[in-house]
């Protein structure tokens, strides 16, 4: 019996190690390839970099438009996450603490919209942006991203606010606090961790989005990092190390944030499931 448990344990550890190896190998592959010359890669795509070089990384950082794209991505991410978070914070507060007609309906619509495929909205939004003269500018992407993030963000705040006792808001109201003051001084300080979680989740989404960026942005100088990467892939098909060095640029910020705030990630990204 005891022996059986032990074998089961070893088997599980072995299985988990294999799964982890599969999960990590592509990332390792990108890292090691980025450190190789194109020639070394062609000779042995999977070998350990015998003579590591930073050439690809410095190329990406200093001679190619990658930093420019990263900056664009950062601007788009910051702008859209900022707008959607503020909108959702206000709406979530109103839905949970407003106590007026129509808020339940708004929430139901909102939950449905969370899973509407963005691609189905793309054509009209493109036409609209053309008509507004915003196409091929970062604001066009920021506006669309912000709107797309609103439903999940509202849903997220509603779930969180429902855990705050209503008496806290009533106490502030009786004390003569206006709604904005209550939101700012009572609710927001209590929601710091939740807000941070949401910001991370939305930031990841904005940082990684490709289709909309690809359609809305055309000038090379205005691309987001994801759109830029795909161009890069097309242009340097035979220089895999260079492309993967650029890929690392897209991965590193995300991984760093992940390592710093793993629990926020896990909590936030599972929020659409269940409660």
């Amino acid at each position, binding site marked *: 019996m005891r022996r059986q448990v032990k074998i089961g344990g070893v088997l599980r550890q072995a299985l988990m190690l294999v799964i982890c190896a599969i999960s990590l190998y592509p990332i390792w592959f990108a890292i090691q390839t980025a450190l190789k010359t194109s020639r070394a890669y062609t000779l042995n795509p999977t070998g350990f970099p015998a003579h590591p070089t930073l050439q690809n990384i410095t190329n990406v950082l200093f001679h190619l438009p990658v930093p420019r794209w990263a900056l664009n991505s950062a601007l788009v991410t910051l702008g859209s996450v900022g707008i959607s978070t503020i909108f959702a914070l206000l709406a979530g507060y109103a839905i949970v603490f407003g106590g007026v007609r129509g808020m339940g309906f708004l929430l139901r619509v909102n939950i449905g919209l969370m899973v509407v495929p963005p691609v189905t909205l793309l054509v009209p939004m493109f036409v609209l942006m053309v008509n507004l003269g915003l196409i091929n500018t970062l604001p066009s992407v920021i506006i669309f991203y912000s709107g797309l993030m609103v439903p999940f963000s509202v849903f997220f705040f509603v779930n969180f606010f429902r855990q705050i*006792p209503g*008496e*806290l808001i*009533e*106490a*502030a*109201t*009786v*004390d*003569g*606090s*206006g709604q904005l*003051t209550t939101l700012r*001084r*009572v609710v927001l*300080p*209590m929601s710091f961790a939740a807000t941070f979680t949401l910001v991370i989740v939305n930031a990841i989404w904005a940082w990684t989005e490709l289709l909309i960026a690809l359609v809305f942005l055309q000038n090379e100088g205005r691309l987001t990092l994801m759109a830029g990467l795909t161009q890069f892939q097309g242009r340097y098909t035979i220089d895999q190390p260079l492309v993967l060095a650029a890929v690392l640029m897209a991965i590193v910020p995300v991984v760093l944030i992940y390592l710093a705030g793993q629990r926020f990630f896990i909590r936030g990204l599972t929020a659409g499931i269940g409660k």
Partner: protein
Amino acid sequence: MSEISIVGVRKQFSNGSNALDDVNLRIEDGQFAVLVGPSGCGKTTLLRIIAGLEKPTSGVVKIGDQDVTQLSPGDRDVAMVFQNYALYPHMTVAENIRFGLEVRKLPRDEITRRTLEAAKMLGLSDYLDRKPKQLSGGQRQRVAMGRAIVRRPLAFLMDEPLSNLDAQLRVSMRAELARLRTQMPTTTVYVTHDQVEAMTLGDQVAVLRDGVLQQNASPEELFERPANVFVATFIGSPSMNVVQATVRGGQVRAGELSIQLPPVIAARVEGREVIMGIRPGDLLDARQADPALPRIEVTCDVVEYLGTEANVLFSLDARQGEGGFSGEDEDSEHSTGRARLTARVGRASGIRPGDRVPLAVDVERLYFFDAQTHLTIRSPGRPALV
């Protein structure tokens, strides 16, 4: 002046049932008014309507001379203490107390002065930098009080503020509340389901049942001259005994029981179907009572020994009086077909379950209620029981 008037207040829930039905209530300036009643009677709803947290379906709420019915809570200048205290978890004790003054934009030094003063009054001076999490239940309760006191409002509204404390702490906080009152004679509306709290704290006590105000009077008046069966049985512990009875020829009969009434009382109820009430303390151990009093003999079912005295529970072959308060189990009395009664006797009586117990009835202190309306039967021109 900050008396509170509630005129014709009705609150209807969306399902059509009435939470409050035409409640009229006046609380004089500086009075400590208690709203009491079983859970679901509408007392908290009424308090929230006074606070402005809920709007009445119809009716008017006045504070001082001002009609505040349409005003939002923040404009009514009232302070509220919540059942769960509603302390802001991210703020320190001092910040919690200050908050109400800060949002009203009082001068900074005034805020600090008042905060320290309130903290001192409540013995919180050493805890000002703590967060609510680091406080005991009693201390949190004090912070909630402090938050109200510091505001110096027109009125305090308290929603079962002691119900989250354990029994011992509740008694000491009750005493403290009474002490604070002598220092701050502000009009107060206090909601509780605990009739002892109501009787000990209130200048006036309003008893509510199913959204209808039953009686609003001083504690003494409520106890001595309840308006109806419900108030009679709700106020006082143990509850008043009530049985269905008829009065014929100066005798009141309830099942096997028959008691000769003094002529003055008999005249008031002669020939009527009544509910007869008697408080457990007015059923006396016959061996120690005035021999002139009428006697009954009952069989003891249960003895509840309380230290200085004991409750003797027994049943009678009579119908339980209708319309009384019966705690949570609304229909348990009706199931046996016998009325259950309690007598409070001295601890030295030595009564055991199964004993035949002779009891003397203090006939002067019998209560009579109309069997249909459940209202106290008063003699014309004379208050009941005088």
